[in-house]
């Protein structure tokens, strides 16, 4: 695998964006684009699509922002990785999982959506495709020294062409070692011991 993300990561509140900030930036950029289009109507980079944000689109963007805010709320990511799977465990949400069989990424299909993943250079990208054109992607990129993890979450829906994107940063930390060794069992649930515990 091109990069090893395994470990515990906690949110770095000193970096990254908050949702309100990201929305403000988005609306500001769109309004600047509209202004430029009005000033230079013949510019080849600006088509007729570059209009102001309608009320419907504005609501759709707010909805996406709210959803992304919820999805990216967990403060801690626990990432486990081996040669076959990368698993990003998040509190109160399902673990994002990316499996590789003979080097080929394996998606997850369910009646409710499809999750696929891939490597883009050293970045891991996970796409979730849901009904009604809702798509959520997460791009995980680690700093060269392995101390920071940047997660760019982008959501789009059928109601707006404009995606909503949020950058979050995480710092690697060493989770304190537990005084107990635990394993999951079926009949006794979680079994812990202060000594060595074999599966």
């Amino acid at each position, binding site marked *: 695998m091109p990069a090893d993300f395994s470990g515990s990561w906690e949110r770095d509140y000193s970096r990254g964006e908050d949702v309100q900030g990201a929305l403000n930036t988005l609306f500001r950029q769109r309004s600047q684009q509209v202004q430029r289009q009005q000033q230079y109507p013949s510019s080849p980079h600006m088509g007729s699509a570059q209009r102001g944000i309608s009320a419907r689109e504005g609501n759709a963007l707010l909805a996406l922002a709210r959803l992304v805010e919820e999805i990216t709320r967990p403060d801690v990511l626990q990432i486990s990785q081996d040669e076959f799977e990368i698993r990003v465990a998040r509190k109160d949400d399902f673990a994002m999982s990316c499996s590789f*069989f003979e080097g080929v990424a394996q998606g997850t299909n369910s009646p409710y959506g499809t999750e696929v993943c891939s490597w883009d250079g050293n970045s891991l990208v996970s796409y979730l495709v849901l009904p009604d054109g809702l798509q959520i992607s997460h791009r995980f990129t680690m700093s060269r020294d392995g101390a920071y993890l940047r997660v760019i979450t982008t959501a789009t829906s059928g109601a707006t062409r404009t995606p909503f994107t949020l950058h979050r940063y995480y710092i690697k930390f060493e989770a304190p070692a537990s005084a107990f060794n635990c394993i999951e069992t079926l009949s006794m649930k979680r079994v812990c011991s202060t000594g060595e515990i074999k599966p």
Partner: protein
Amino acid sequence: MKRLAVIAAALLCLAPQIVLAQLNVSIAVFDPGVPEDNALHRDLQVFPKIREIESMFLPFVLRQTLVDSGDWGAVRVVPQADTASELLITGTIVHSDGETLAVELRAVDARGHEWTNQTYTTQSDFNDLYAGFIDDLRTARDGFDDRTLRNIVGTSLMRYSAELAPDAFDGYIEMQPDGTVKLLRLPAEGDPMLARIQRIRSVEYVMTDAIDQKFRELHQEVDSVYEIWRKYRRWYTNFKAEEAQRNEFSKTNADSGTYEAIKQSYDNYRMDRLAAQEQDKWAVGFNNEMEPIIEKMEERIAEMNGWVEDGYVEWARILEELFEIESGLD
């Protein structure tokens, strides 16, 4: 009539006594039915390690059912299929999700004749699954007369003998083009080579019974935990069905792209994944609990198999030497 019976009895005495009681049955550990393509496991809901446990556990349940029926001789679970068995049962797990269990079962006698080969399915307990199979076995057996049953027992003995001492016993059986085995004749009563073979087979049976005992112990250890696993799997299957129904009924009327609409889309997927991941956790718990037991059992079986195999080589060598001495060959 009486005279005929006397002649028949006299003729039978020429052959070594094959006491026809009930056929002995060997049940080989099942094929777990795990697809080679790992990518299919998730879609097919196959948990390879649990299938491996089921492949050792389910034959023992069948063994018990056959023993309880009282229709058969010694019924043993064996690690590998032995074609010299009087009646050999092999199986492949086709489907197992706690709710539905489907196993393809095949029974072949020592002559290579197939008694039954089909997939048996149950949605309740295992006895239901095996009841149909056992009925089929009984029907097949009842269709044979005593002579045929004796032939099966004799063929079994000669196949075993020919494996151990081919020079001495190859001439007693003949492989047919269709893969079946024909019993040509039997050694005379009191044949010293056959007496040795029978003694060796008795020793091997003792070892096979010891291995069978290991499967019994596994069954005792696995039974309660396996039942919990099945209960969870049933819960998961029901949950999926109910979830699909609930989502169908609670479809939001919110406009596409609104928070309510996209939140419901995400939550449906989230709940589905959480349930699937919970199930994965149970599978890990099951494996964690069973692994030490399975490992210990496999070690012990390998050790016992090793003894049998080592003994086999040695017995074959000794028998070969004795045959050369007794038959006057150089």
